[in-house]
């Protein structure tokens, strides 16, 4: 008889281990279920209506993909702009920019529609084997406010299984996991999988609300070529180019990329092809996303400091400068806010029906005062941020 087979296992050790497993299960369940509770967003004085994306496609109602839609309508009639944050919840500056607009911006002419958690399901999990924290905090003057980090794709608990090859509604063949990527699923399909129905609902919103200009906010890893950039559908290229030029005059370097016609399923391509909106996508640098990053934690997400990226930049491996101060969230959200404001400003010079908003801080203001100064405090708000 082998020594191990003598063992010490008895019915009561089995029972004890089952109880221990149940205890671990309880703790783990609590942690995973907490991901399904949305951290609050406090509508500011500029918000005139809060609806749901399922208002535009009822088959989304009651699903984990349904998500709030915030409308900021001005006293004067004008055009309509759509801002999308949270297409990829592992790109948090996008969602935070949308939240800063909801909590602090006011529209005087036209309408601003903001979806801060575009892929709501993807906020309920993180990507496996990446070591991401479930949450991170932004310091406000009244204390830290917690936000959720999420996944690039729809939670597999909500949409399963992934195919080996995903052919999206626009006919593009992609890797199987992209079936849960909202920004590969446009223009969506009313009878498709959950992510395709979500994409379809967003396109329906653009059509129903007659959106004139639609901006999809993102982040990219420092080693990704399309970074600190505006990607524009050909119809929106002149607006993007002029905005980039003016942003350069203001000291903010940003590139312009034309939306490839052969890369289908992305917002900047399909929104432009399937709707009348000028379609744009904006990228900021997120050190927590890249493969060259070091320790992955909430500090990296918020502070954006990583010595390995500093070394990679010294060796010319990155597409953005990367100094010791890194790329903090304040900078990334500030860039997005100033870019959105500039895109609308340029759009207004061309359009008959413009969108005028106030209360949007510049990059310099966010760097000076911190993003938290432009968000409500963690407790229920009593006044504007």
């Amino acid at each position, binding site marked *: 008889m082998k020594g*191990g087979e003598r063992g010490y296992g008895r019915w009561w050790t089995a029972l004890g281990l089952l109880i*221990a497993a149940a205890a671990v299960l309880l703790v783990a369940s609590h942690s995973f279920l907490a991901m399904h509770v949305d951290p609050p967003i406090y509508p500011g004085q500029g918000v005139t209506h809060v609806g749901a994306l399922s208002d535009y496609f009822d088959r989304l109602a009651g699903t984990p993909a349904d998500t709030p839609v915030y409308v900021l309508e001005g006293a004067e009639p004008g055009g309509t702009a759509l801002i999308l944050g949270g297409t990829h919840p592992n790109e948090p500056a996008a969602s935070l920019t949308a939240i800063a607009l909801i909590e602090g911006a006011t529209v005087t002419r036209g309408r601003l529609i903001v979806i801060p958690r575009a892929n709501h399901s993807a906020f309920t999990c993180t990507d496996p084997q990446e070591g991401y924290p479930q949450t991170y905090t932004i310091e406000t003057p009244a204390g830290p406010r917690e936000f959720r980090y999420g996944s690039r794709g729809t939670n597999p608990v909500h949409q399963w299984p992934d195919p080996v090859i995903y052919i999206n509604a626009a006919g593009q063949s992609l890797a199987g996991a992209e079936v849960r990527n909202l920004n590969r699923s446009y223009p969506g399909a009313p009878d498709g999988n959950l992510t395709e129905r979500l994409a379809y609902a967003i396109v329906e919103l653009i059509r129903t609300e007659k959106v004139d200009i639609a901006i999809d906010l993102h982040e990219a890893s420092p080693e990704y070529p399309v970074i600190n950039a505006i990607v524009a559908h050909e119809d929106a290229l002149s607006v993007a180019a002029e905005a980039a030029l003016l942003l350069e005059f203001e000291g903010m370097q940003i590139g312009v990329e034309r939306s490839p016609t052969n890369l289908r399923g992305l917002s900047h391509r399909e929104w432009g092809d399937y709707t009348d909106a000028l379609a744009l996508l904006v990228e900021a640098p997120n050190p927590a996303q890249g493969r060259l990053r070091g320790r992955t934690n909430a500090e990296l997400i918020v502070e954006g400091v990583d010595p390995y990226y500093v070394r990679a930049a010294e060796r010319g491996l990155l597409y953005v400068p990367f100094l010791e101060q890194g790329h903090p969230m304040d900078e990334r959200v500030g860039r997005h806010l100033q870019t959105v404001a500039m895109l609308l400003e340029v759009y207004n010079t061309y359009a008959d029906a413009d969108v005028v908003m106030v209360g949007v801080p510049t990059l310099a203001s966010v760097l000076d005062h911190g993003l938290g100064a432009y968000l409500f405090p963690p407790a229920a708000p009593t006044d504007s941020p």
Partner: protein
Amino acid sequence: MTLIYQIIAASVIALIVWNLLREKRLAEQMAAALVLIPLILRVLMLK
């Protein structure tokens, strides 16, 4: 599809619990208890 997946996972859980109760080696019992955790999270669609 998801229901079939859950039935398969639940069947595996039942077999593991059965083995855990009959197993005489403590190390094997511990391994079985560890394996149960992600499987139960799967069946409950929590992760």
